[in-house]
């Protein structure tokens, strides 16, 4: 029988895997700490 797979499942299977070593870009903010955080 034909069963419709859940979208999430499809998305998961069809999602293009990240290339090995892929590092997601840092979040745009907050920025770098120049001295120290109190």
């Amino acid at each position, binding site marked *: 029988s034909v069963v419709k797979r859940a979208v999430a499942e499809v998305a998961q299977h069809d999602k293009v895997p990240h290339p090995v070593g892929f590092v997601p870009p840092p979040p745009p903010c*907050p*920025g*770098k700490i120049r001295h120290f955080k*109190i």
Partner: protein
Amino acid sequence: VPAAPPAPLGCDDPESEAAAEVAVSYINGHSHHGYKFALNRIENIRVLPQGPNNDIIFLELDLLETKCHILSPTPLANCTVRSFTEHAVEGDCDVKLQKLDGKLSVLASKCHSHADSSEDIIRLCPDCPLLARLNNTEVLTTVTAALSAHNSKTTDAYLRLLEIGRANIQYHPVRTVFVEFAVAATNCSAAEAKDNAEACQLLPDDQSNFGFCTASKAIHPSRDLIVDCQLYGHQVPTPDIPFLSRPGVTYSQGQDTS
């Protein structure tokens, strides 16, 4: 197809850093008490386009107090940030800027400063001196004694207190009071002041000569006072930013500038 909106600015992008630099320069240029602050972190940036080459920018900045008093002519880049073990003071600032035809200007700023928690300092450095309130009796006594000791030894102008900038008390191994205060030269020599110090007035703005003193005094067991005062020499006052003109004003953390 309409052009995709520009990607949001990152907090470490060059444009964000340029805006933060203008904001910090404005904050230090419009502060009349305490110390210069340096940028520690850009917490957030929001850009609201108003039209061609016209953006409103909202910045959230995390600043740290430096060792340079606000009256010091030392460039901010040469001002050392007070370290964690010296009981750092942080400034949180919200700044609104406009970028018009590539030129940045500050429209408004609001800052709130607060010292690091004493518990954090003690946990990592049990013997580090902790910030004391500026009206603490031992602090006031040490400042008065230090200024008097300097004026009794100097051959230069008689100095008056402008404001107490900071005070720390170390409890171990010897109870010691450390103070920093801003001073100004008067129209008397120290010798003339011995006769009638009340007659000595601060020099007018066009001749003003500000300075900065540090002093420390071990209380138990009592030891000699150590005082060091340095005058900056005459600086041309910036017309739209009046220098301190109320001697004896003390600076309290948490004072908003808006």
